């Protein structure tokens, strides 16, 4: 029974990944794209957790932990680039 649940969860997360990727492609501004990237990182953490459930290899959880921290650093770096480095849309 758990196998079917995990397959369904894979399908749902794949659909969510496609939706987030559409926003990543069409996002009108750079912050929109960074938001989509953040969501994709969260989805990847979910994927890794479900893969850990189906493969029973708990070492993958370390990867998810590192991914959670790296995504945060990426968002902060992009925000700093936007505020201090890039040109403004309002000008």
């Amino acid at each position, binding site marked *: 029974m758990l196998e079917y649940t*995990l397959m369904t969860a894979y399908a749902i997360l794949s659909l969510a990944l496609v939706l*987030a990727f559409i926003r990543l492609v069409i996002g009108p501004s750079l912050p*929109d794209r960074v938001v989509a990237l953040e*969501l994709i990182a969260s989805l990847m953490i*979910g994927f890794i957790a479900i893969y850990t459930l189906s493969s029973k290899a708990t070492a993958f959880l370390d990867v998810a932990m590192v991914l959670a*921290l790296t995504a945060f650093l990426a968002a902060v770096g992009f925000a700093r680039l936007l505020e201090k480095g890039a040109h403004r849309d309002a000008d």
Partner: protein
Amino acid sequence: MLTEILISLLVLLGALFMLVAALGVLRMPDLTMRLHATTKAGVLGVGLIMLGLVIYFMNLGVSARALAIVGFTMLTSPIAAHVMGRAGYVTGVPMWQHSIKDELKGRYHPHTHELASHAPPADAQAPHDGH
């Protein structure tokens, strides 16, 4: 058997929350609304899936790692959302056309990044102030 049903329920619920987050990111009309959708639902989705993982393994090492992942997500996600919302406002990303509240309007200088705490002059106030 009962634990299997519980784990399935938690994992499916977490995956559905992530789907709702992705739907919100795609469908919401505004940067701040998209942030609202992705942050809350993303944290809840990761938390529910990790809870299912903890119940499945019932192991101290796995529980500690899952707790660390949930803790890091809960710590970093609001900060990242705040920083992105601020960067979006500063760079002049337009708000939704039907937004009625912009408290920083008139109190923020877009070039010098200066914030003023006093009330803005009357001509700078939003037409739909109040409510």
